């Protein structure tokens, strides 16, 4: 056979050159901003940088101080409470709403819009509105009291021991619509034959949801979990708008700690140490997931 044409394997770098060129922004963002930025942050967390970053290493001092700080501990606890409850309630409420919506109801569009519209509003707006609704002098408490229940007390934003639940109420209000949407999409993706099979088997509806449908929606739950979780870690605006971390430090969260110490206390090193702790937590949760999702199984 006459060997005309190219014989050798061409340089791999130049195959699909266009694709690689088009991916440059993504690669730059991933490497320079996300990876570079994170590494930069971690490195500077070992320094005593104040207002401006300085490479003056002090070992683990910033971390020692961080973990000795009552506010950081409270922040972590709050994040844990808020995170766990927010996950549970978002998933439960989102799923229940989606299940209700999936019953071939009338006015589905109207209900869906109602559940989803808060998602269009920023946390700042959400925080302001709920601050208003939960205000004991004007809001729910005063209304209920004016109805004659004078002992009624509902002032989550002014009670340090339950303030985080006040924030949770607002957070759920804002976010469950999206969860419902995701769940609904997942429900609609389930083979209708499964429902029929369950009906023929005489399995009641709630059991079908619980034992058959929910396990089948695992991928949707995972996607949703990731989306909610990424929001939880970042929760900041909501707290700032609703309580500014108060009363006292009762509703502080890690992201706010980072921001306050970096900029208000002008102690970058401390802020970076706190960010590094957050990064570490996120990494511990996310990397195994990302590995399973994107690295482990090869797509066709």
């Amino acid at each position, binding site marked *: 056979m006459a060997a005309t044409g190219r014989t050798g394997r061409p340089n791999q770098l130049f195959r699909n050159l266009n694709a690689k060129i088009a991916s440059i922004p993504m690669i730059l963002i991933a490497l320079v901003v996300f990876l570079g930025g994170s590494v930069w942050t971690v490195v500077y967390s070992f320094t005593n940088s104040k207002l401006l970053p300085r490479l003056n290493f002090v070992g683990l001092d910033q971390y020692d101080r961080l973990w000795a700080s009552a506010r950081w501990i409270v922040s972590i606890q709050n994040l844990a409470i808020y995170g766990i409850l927010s996950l549970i309630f978002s998933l439960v409420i989102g799923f229940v709403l989606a299940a209700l919506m999936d019953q071939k109801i009338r006015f589905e569009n109207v209900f869906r819009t109602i559940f989803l519209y808060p998602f269009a509003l920023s946390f700042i707006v959400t925080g302001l509105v709920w601050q208003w609704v939960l205000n004991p*002098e004007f809001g729910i408490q005063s209304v209920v009291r004016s109805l004659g229940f004078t002992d009624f007390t509902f002032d989550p934003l002014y009670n340090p021991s339950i303030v985080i639940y006040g924030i949770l109420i607002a957070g759920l209000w804002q976010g469950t619509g999206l969860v419902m949407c995701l769940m609904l999409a997942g429900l609609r993706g389930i083979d209708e034959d499964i429902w029929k099979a369950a009906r023929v088997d005489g399995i009641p509806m709630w059991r079908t949801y619980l034992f058959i449908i929910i396990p089948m929606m695992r991928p949707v739950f995972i996607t949703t979990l990731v989306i909610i979780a990424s929001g939880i870690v970042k929760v900041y605006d909501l707290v700032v708008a609703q309580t500014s971390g108060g009363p006292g430090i009762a509703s502080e969260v890690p992201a706010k700690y980072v921001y*306050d110490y970096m900029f208000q206390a002008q102690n970058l090193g401390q802020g970076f140490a706190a960010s590094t702790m957050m990064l570490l937590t996120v990494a511990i949760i996310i990397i195994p997931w990302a590995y399973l999702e994107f690295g482990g199984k090869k797509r066709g």
Partner: protein
Amino acid sequence: TDLEVTHWWTSGGEAAAVKELAKAFDATGNKWVDGAIAGSGGTARPIMISRITGGDPMGATQFNHGRQAQELVEAGLMRDLTDLATKEKWKEVIKPASLLDSCTIDGKIYCAPVNIHSWQWLWLSNEAFKKAGVDVPKNWNDFVAAAPALKKAGIQPLALGGQPWQASGLFDTLALSLGGKDLYMKVYKDKDADAAGGADMAKVFKAAADARDMAKGSNVQDWNQATNLVITGKAGGQIMGDWAQGEFQLAGQTAGKDYSCLPGLGLSDYITTGGDAFYFPLLKDKEKAKAQEVLASTIVSPKAQVAFNLKKGSLPIRGDVDLASANDCMKKGLAIVAKGNALISTDQLLSADTQKQKEDLFSQFFANPSMTADAAQKRFAEIISSAD
């Protein structure tokens, strides 16, 4: 030339005062581009700093006196005003001298002070006490004693906003007014942890715990909302800096008649003098640089000083201006300053980092009745021992 000026003066009295500065500056043929950022210095400062370090500096910016801008200066990002200051003899006119000292780094002057603020004031609503049927207190102790009567009358004894710096400021005020000058200097200037944990300080903490009880139930966030409670007679009093004056004034109230003010909480003859100053980032644009100089000189000028400080309720930075139109309260303050009883404020003595930790501590302390004075004092001593 347009010059963008950033600051966080957005309450009623503050905005009115800023307007005077702007007017004065505009009169020089330049234009004041207002860059107000609402939500107190805590919100505004990060933005200002980001912009300066990010290479997009404004023409001038407000900072508190003291150490907030120190690193920016050290990094060579700020403009040196020494020439102007020498020309206009700032060293001589600006009183007390500590104000200019905190603008001075390595012998160079980097900021133009605008006003003097003192924290140690107790503002009282005359109407509230009338309603409660007690005399208007003459000092903090009277006030504490009157609290039950106020409560009975359905009046909040002490108004305190939720912002952390208010709690922290209240405590510092108690420390100076109840603990005295020496204790104040030992703790805040010398960072003496033993003093901070000592018996004298314990008394202050005890008083803070009382204040906490009196403040319970004031569900407001901003300082001026708290002031408003006093203005409207819903609260008996508020410990707040002299800037609260501006709010009373704006509400059309008269000192002595509608409200009373007690510098040093009526117990002590010392106040601290902190305040605001304008810093001028280094700009490339020659025109703007010139305008910066004009602004600096405008700020320090007697006319602007009078106009501004009357509106703001703070004291002017120069001793050579005539404040005939000042009201009772301001005059009390001026008298103390004139006596030389002005101390350096905590803003200048402590780093922002320490201040922040203090704020965290006291906002927690004031919001959380279950935190004992002892525990708070222990933590306070820790903060002071590691302060810089």
